């Protein structure tokens, strides 16, 4: 791989520099690239750092000077305290967990099961049905909103289960909308498992449930982890589904709660900045701790 990178960087790299002047010349040669990348780094970091710095500044300072005026920086945690307590972001944080965790585990389980059937069991119309799954992959969620919401409303009115008042509606909706992509992704991984292994287990008399549990799942941990992380962050970051399917304000997730801050406090940046970073904590943690799975999951998820 190192060779290939070098191949793109000109013949100068192929031999090590011998003299100081040679080294300096080489750096000058690459100066436009370093400059360009420095600019890229600046443009991609400055906006987020600006908001991060702002989230630790007292309200009065934010109104009188820009965050880039680092000489006037004074540190405070008041914004975070105020947003977490008075603005309800702490309970919204817990709500987000309440929404995200079942909305990750449930589709993960159902997708693994269906993907196993599509890859290692035999049933009629298997390929046709899998083609249907791929077709459904691209359907915009908007197409399902009105009928699903109407269905939930009628169910709530006739049975009083309170799907829309609680988390039932959003769990079911996230799970269902995740299925085509999850089945597609996991099925493509499952079919790469060694056939001999599964055949051997079958000859030893293992049932399908046992093959699924003791052979397929343990061998697929990386793929399942990548998909699980993707789905978790997808739900964590979602706003649209929460707008439609979480109707009780006490159950709102962070994304929806921040919207409230934006509406009520148009220029109260001390609250908004802190709120946005509370929303970002978990994805950033996942990003830095599980970067490999995370990038894999996102790249695979690009077809969604």
């Amino acid at each position, binding site marked *: 791989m190192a060779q290939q990178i070098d191949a793109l960087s000109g013949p100068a790299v192929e031999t090590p520099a011998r003299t100081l002047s040679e080294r300096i010349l080489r750096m000058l040669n690459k100066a436009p690239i370093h400059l360009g990348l420095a600019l890229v780094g600046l443009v991609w970091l400055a*906006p987020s750092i600006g908001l991060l710095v702002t989230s630790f500044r007292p309200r009065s300072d934010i109104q009188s000077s820009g965050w880039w005026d680092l000489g006037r920086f004074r540190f405070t945690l008041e914004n975070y305290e105020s947003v977490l307590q008075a603005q309800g972001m702490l309970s919204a944080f817990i709500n987000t967990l309440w929404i995200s965790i079942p909305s990750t585990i449930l589709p993960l389980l159902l997708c693994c099961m269906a993907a196993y059937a599509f890859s290692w069991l035999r049933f009629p119309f298997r390929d046709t049905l899998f083609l249907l799954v791929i077709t459904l992959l691209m359907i*915009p969620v908007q197409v399902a909103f009105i009928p699903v919401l109407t269905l939930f409303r009628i169910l709530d009115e006739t049975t009083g289960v309170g799907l829309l008042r609680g988390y039932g509606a959003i769990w079911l909706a996230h799970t269902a909308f995740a299925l085509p992509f999850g089945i597609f992704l996991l099925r493509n991984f499952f079919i790469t498992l060694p056939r001999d292994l599964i055949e051997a287990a079958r000859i030893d008399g293992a049932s399908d449930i046992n093959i699924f549990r003791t052979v397929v799942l343990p061998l697929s941990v990386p793929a399942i982890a990548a998909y699980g992380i993707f789905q978790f962050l997808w739900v964590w970051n979602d706003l649209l589904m929460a707008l439609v399917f979480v109707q009780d304000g006490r159950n709102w997730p962070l994304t929806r709660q921040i919207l409230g801050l934006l509406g009520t406090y148009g220029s109260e940046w001390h609250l908004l900045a802190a709120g946005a970073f509370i929303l970002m904590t978990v994805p950033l943690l996942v990003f830095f701790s599980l970067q490999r799975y995370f990038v894999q999951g996102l790249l695979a998820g690009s077809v969604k």
Partner: protein
Amino acid sequence: MTAASGAIGSSRGRRSWGEGTNWSSLVFLLPAAILVIVFLVYPTIYTVLLSFNRGRNGEFTEWVGLRNYEQLFLRDPAFINLSTFPPSGAMWNNLLWLILYVSIVLALGLIIAVMAGRVRYEALIKAVVFLPMAIAATALAVIWTFVYSPNPTQGLLNAIIGTVGAGPVAWLGNPDLVNYAIIAVGIWGSVGFATVILSAALKGIPTEIIEAARVDGASERQIFFRIIVPMVSLPMSVLAVTLVVNVVKLFDLIFVMTAGGPGTASRVMAFTMYTEAFAGGLFGKGAAVAVIMLLILIPVMAFNIRRFRSEAVV
């Protein structure tokens, strides 16, 4: 479930329930199948039908034929207005997004991937550019609404142009600027994705080809346009399709940054669908917008199915 019958995958699915059918497949498929039918298949049919209905309360109340579509295309300047120049409306804005967002994300992604490949801190640059992919569009929207703040002691952009005596500019408050301002945010959020994919593709280009070109006296410019660009054109087209889907589904950024405003200047289709149906109670009209979105995505679906098949996935 006799083991010897070898009910094992990869042979084509049989067309009838009989010998060779693995009955336990029902157990594995049923939960997912029920959810897919109730939440995807049935709703799609329902929404298509509802788009020809008045759809009060989301239920079938009165058939109106094509009136919802007629209304959207002919009598709703907030959806599409071709009578002015430049045209305006949600669908036009989606087109604007499609052209600018897709091309600039691809171009910047490739340029950054090529540049990053020539320095030691490649991984760091890629991580920095990729970072926005991790965070919610809602957070991106807050970050950039702050950058765009019309108050030059708060908004970075107005502070910068203020140093040369210009501005302040209401980036999000001006109907002529608002779309470009939000498209820039969309680009900022997606370039890292393109960079990571294209950087992987670049590493797949055999060293010999570039060396041979160099020996033959090709300039760096020629190597970039004649070798690198053509050799990453396949991943580029796959990326382009993904970005097109992003544009059609675009919602969060608009909803948080401007709520479609000022007026209706920055609306997009997904925003119109949500607003008409859930804020305005016009479910028939909302369903029609959803169907239009679906129709736009059908060619994309076809492209992907063909691609998956050629990769011998199906």
